[in-house]
């Protein structure tokens, strides 16, 4: 969803062209027995940080590019997560905000199984913008 400075919102649910790799890696994912099927925060956090560095790097907030950036970040993080091959459903959310002095708070609450499910949130910034990426992993 886009929240513009004049107060209007647009909610685009149009799907970007599907990444065929996402579909094939999900189909080949098999249910693995207990040992390797937990949500590892460090692993996920590294994936997120590398993705943001690659896609945004030192760029300033550009209104015409931000749409593509957020979509690329979530797509890339999701692809990397599916490559881990764990029996999880994933939700990846990215927020990019200009650095103009306004305050922002994010909070999340989850109704799930604490022993198997987990989340990871990475707050990243450069001189011109903030990026906050959250990943939630829920076991099947």
């Amino acid at each position: 969803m886009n929240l513009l400075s004049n107060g209007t919102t647009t909610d685009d649910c149009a799907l970007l062209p599907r990444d065929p790799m996402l579909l094939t890696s999900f189909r080949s994912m098999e249910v693995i027995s207990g040992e390797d099927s937990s949500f590892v925060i460090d692993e996920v956090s590294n994936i997120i940080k590398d993705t943001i560095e690659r896609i945004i790097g030192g760029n300033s907030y550009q209104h015409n590019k931000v749409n593509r950036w957020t979509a690329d970040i979530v797509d890339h993080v999701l692809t990397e997560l599916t490559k881990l091959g764990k029996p999880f459903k994933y939700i990846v959310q990215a927020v990019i905000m200009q650095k103009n002095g306004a305050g922002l708070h994010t909070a999340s609450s989850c109704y799930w199984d604490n022993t198997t499910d987990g989340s990871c949130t990475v707050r990243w910034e450069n001189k011109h913008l903030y990026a906050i990426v959250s990943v939630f992993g829920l076991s099947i």
Partner: protein
Amino acid sequence: MNYSNAISNLNFSSNIHSKSSRSFNTNEVKQMLEQLIQQIIDKQNEYDCDKCTQLSKDLSQIIKDAMKSLNYEQYKYVIQVVLGQCQDDNLMMTCRCLWDIETDNYASYVYSNTKIFCAVTVFGLFYY
């Protein structure tokens, strides 16, 4: 702050469904979010950094409790609340999910007044 009266003031129109597994209904959840969020955000007269920190956490807990009261069987929920000051800024929020299209869904609602904006997303995922 006690928001339990906000939850008890909610009116649901679709309680005729029995407890047998009905799937996540976006409209129902969105209606619930509209009622709750407008009540709570309108009580804030201005953006206050400390109050809004607590408010965002409280809001996510309240919405989680309201989702539990909707009685969807076998569903896990993730509720994300983004609260910010209305200044001359732009913000872009995107999400992508890897899930089962037949059973899982999400509902989102954005509300803003002159001081504060609030974007809430609720994801419902079926647990087999």
